[in-house]
C-alpha cells in the first residue's frame, strides 16, 4: 500500500496536509467532525515515514532519494512559513462565526452579512477561509437540517441532497464579496467604474 513508483505519493501529501492542519490548530476542531474524511486523514496520519518505499526509480538508490527528500521537506516548509508567515489561519474567526454561518445556511439565507448582536444593526462579513470551511462543514454535517425546513425534501433522496448541496454551494459563492469586489462595487456606487478606479491606482506614484 505504501510502495509507490513516484514521489511524493498522494498519501504522503495528505499526511503533510494533516501536519499543516495540526500546526495551525485546525485539526483540534476538525477531528471531531463526524465525517469519513476525518477517519481517512487519521489513517493516513498513522503511516510512518519509513513505511513509504520507492520502486521503479531507475538506477538511483531509492533509500538515498527518500533520505534526500525527507531532508528537503522541512526546508520547503521553512521557506513557505517565511512567505506566508503574516497570514492568519482563520481559525479564531471560524470558531466565532461558524455557528452563525450554519444558522444562515440552515434557513436558506446567504451568509454574507451576519448579524452581530440582536437589536443592533451591526453585521460581520466573514473572511473567505472561515466562510468556506463553515459552509463545507455544514454540507457534510448539517444538510439534513436544511432539508428538514423544506417542504417535500427527502433527506434520503440522493438527487434531492445533491440539488440542495448545490444551492448551499451557490449561497456560499454568492458571499464571495472579498474586499476588492466590495470596493469595486463601492466605486460603482460612488459613480466610478472599476476600470476607472484601477487606472487611478496605477497612475498613483509609487503604486
Amino acid at each position, binding site marked *: 500500500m505504501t510502495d509507490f513508483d513516484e514521489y511524493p505519493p498522494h498519501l504522503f501529501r495528505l499526511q503533510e496536509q494533516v501536519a499543516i492542519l495540526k500546526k495551525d490548530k485546525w485539526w483540534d476542531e476538525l477531528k471531531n467532525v463526524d465525517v469519513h474524511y476525518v477517519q481517512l486523514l487519521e489513517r493516513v496520519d498513522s503511516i510512518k515515514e519509513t513505511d513509504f518505499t520507492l520502486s521503479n526509480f531507475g538506477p538511483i538508490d531509492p533509500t538515498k532519494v527518500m533520505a534526500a527528500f525527507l531532508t528537503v521537506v522541512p526546508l520547503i516548509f521553512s521557506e513557505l512559513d517565511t512567505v506566508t508567515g503574516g497570514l492568519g489561519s482563520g481559525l479564531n474567526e471560524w470558531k466565532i462565526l461558524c455557528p452563525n454561518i450554519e444558522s*444562515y445556511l440552515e434557513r436558506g*439565507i446567504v451568509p*454574507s452579512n451576519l448579524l452581530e448582536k*440582536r437589536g443592533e*444593526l451591526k453585521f460581520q462579513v466573514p473572511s473567505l477561509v472561515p466562510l468556506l470551511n463553515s459552509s463545507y462543514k455544514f454540507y457534510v454535517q448539517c444538510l439534513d437540517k436544511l432539508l428538514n425546513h423544506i417542504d417535500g425534501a427527502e433527506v434520503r433522496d440522493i438527487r434531492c441532497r445533491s*440539488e440542495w448541496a*448545490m444551492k448551499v454551494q451557490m449561497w456560499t459563492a454568492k458571499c464571495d464579496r472579498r474586499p476588492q469586489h466590495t470596493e469595486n462595487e463601492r466605486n460603482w456606487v460612488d459613480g466610478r467604474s472599476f476600470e476607472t478606479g484601477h487606472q487611478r491606482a496605477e497612475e498613483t506614484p509609487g503604486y
Partner: protein
Amino acid sequence: MAVLSKQDINERRKLPVTEAKNLVITPILDEEVFDEDSVDLRLGTYFLLPQIPPQPFVDPTSPGTSSQSYLRLHTPLGAYFVLPAHQTVLGATLEYIKLPFDISGQILTKSSVARMFMVIETAPWIHPLYRGCLTLEIANVSNTAIVLYPGMTIGQLVLLQTSVAEEPAKLSGTYVGPVYPEAPMLREPGERPPPQKRNLWLNARTEKTFRLPRTSPYCSECKGTGGRT
C-alpha cells in the same frame, strides 16, 4: 396591509435569523439605500438572454423550452451590458432577500430608470417567506439601446405587513434559494417540477456562455470590434 417604514424594516433586520420575523437584505453596502418606505435594489451580474427560436413561436408547453431558449451571460462588475431597443433580458437583483412569514413585497422600477423607458419587473409580487435574488424581467421599451451596469440601482422594494398569524412548519422549495435569474418553468397546475429543471444554472451544459462572446456587440470587453471578428 401596511407599508413598512424604514424603522420597521430596520427593526426586522436587527432580529437574528433564528427568529421568525427576521428580515434579510444582503449585501447592504450603504445604509442610504433605505428610503422612508422602500429599499433600493441593484442589478446583479447574471443575465438570461432570450434566444430567437428556430420556429417562429415559443410553445410554453413544449418540454425543455425554458432551458433551451436563453443564453446565459455573466457581466462582471465594472463591465456593462447593452440592451438594444425593444429587447428583453432576464436579470436578477444583486441583493439576496429573505422575507419573514408576515411580510409580502413588491419590486418597482426606479423612477429614474422608468423614465428611460425601461421596465424591470412585470411580476412584481413577492410572497412571504421568499428567499433569494429576485428575477427581473427587464424590457427596453424605448427606441434606443440602453447600457446596463451591474451594481446600478435599478429597482425599489416595498414591503407590506400581512395578517398571517404564524410561520408555517416548512418552506416551499420553489421559493428558496435562487441567486441567478430564473427561466420560466411552465407546467400544469399542481405539477411539481422535475428536480433537474428547477434551476437552469444547475444544468449548465454550456458554461462558456457565462461570459459574453468576445465578439458580441453587447459586451463592453469587445469595444472597438463592433461585434465583428
